[in-house]
């Protein structure tokens, strides 16, 4: 079914989302923003630490990095 053939009353998802965010979207309080920011920083740090851990372990294991005993 083409865009021009859509039944009357059907609107695009994008339109709905824009209306929600313009009219009654969730507005975070300062406390919620602070909590979200602290969680985001913690996730970023944890992911960064994981990348560093895998990098260092690759250096430690050297060519044997793919040899994983069961």
């Amino acid at each position, binding site marked *: 079914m083409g865009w021009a053939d859509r039944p009357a009353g059907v609107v695009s998802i994008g339109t709905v989302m824009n209306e929600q965010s313009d009219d009654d979207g969730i507005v975070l309080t300062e*406390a*919620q923003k602070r909590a979200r920011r602290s969680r985001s920083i913690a996730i970023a740090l944890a992911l960064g630490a994981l990348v560093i851990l895998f990098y260092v372990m690759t250096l430690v294991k050297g060519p044997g990095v793919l040899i994983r005993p069961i």
Partner: protein
Amino acid sequence: MLVSKGADPSGTLAASSLAEPSLATVGDYIVLMKPRVMSLVVFTALVGLAVAPGSLHPVTAFTALLCIAVGAGAAGALNMWYDADVDAVMIRTSRRPVPMGRVRPGEALSFGLMLAGFAVVTLGLLVNWLAAALLAFTIFFYVVIYTVWLKRSTPQNIVIGGAAGAFPPMIGWVAVTSSLSFEPVLLFLIIFFWTPPHFWALALYRADDYARAGIPMLPVVSGDASTRRHILLYTLVLVPLGTAPWLFGYTGPLYGATAALMGVIMLGLGWQVLREKRPAERASRNLFAFSILYLFLLFAVLLVERGWGGLIVRLAS
């Protein structure tokens, strides 16, 4: 009354906060991981890792301990997710993040599952898959066997469920050797038989709390006197087991003397618990506090006498 279902069966827990964006802080997520339990898990895993024969690069050893710690944290978070309903009615646990509504049950569940996945896969990829499989089984045992099944259905909950807390030294050992032998099983047995007197001593003076939550702990189901007898019985098994590493020649006289002395004190406290009548509860509190010292000292001396030298050799080589 037995509680039949966890994770907020009534759906009322923190209902008002469900429509609100989360206020959970990083600190709340750290609490979800039960840091005090984690510290004991890391310590016993370190001992298992240090006393194991063979060599392990310090960075690999650190990675193994990190994965074991995160795995323990994952199990703690999943436990708090499922037990949110009983945590809410117990004084000791009512201020945990899920019953307080700071972390939603779904957030705790996804956090625990994600941590468990990362911990097991990372341990498998960077250390070895047998250790990873043991860690996965430990998390499964604590969450499914203990938390979901045993805790709400039998007074033997902490006897069988105590196995989950006894696995870490075995995982540490397997991280080094990629195999199992009698010595790590002995460490497992020490923690396994230490768990019932430790938790029943706590349950004796928290019996009302457990009864209110409908958790069939031994003092709630079998009564005070029976619990005191069971504490002494398990302590009688624990004390010889505590000295077994020395008797089998795995450790030196320092460990033997420490285990014997601490064992005598532990037995004395167990006897006091048996003799003491309610409402007096000093002996139970003393035994609970001393049991922590007992396990810590035994493993610390083991680390100093057996493991510390090995670690230094490994770091130097």
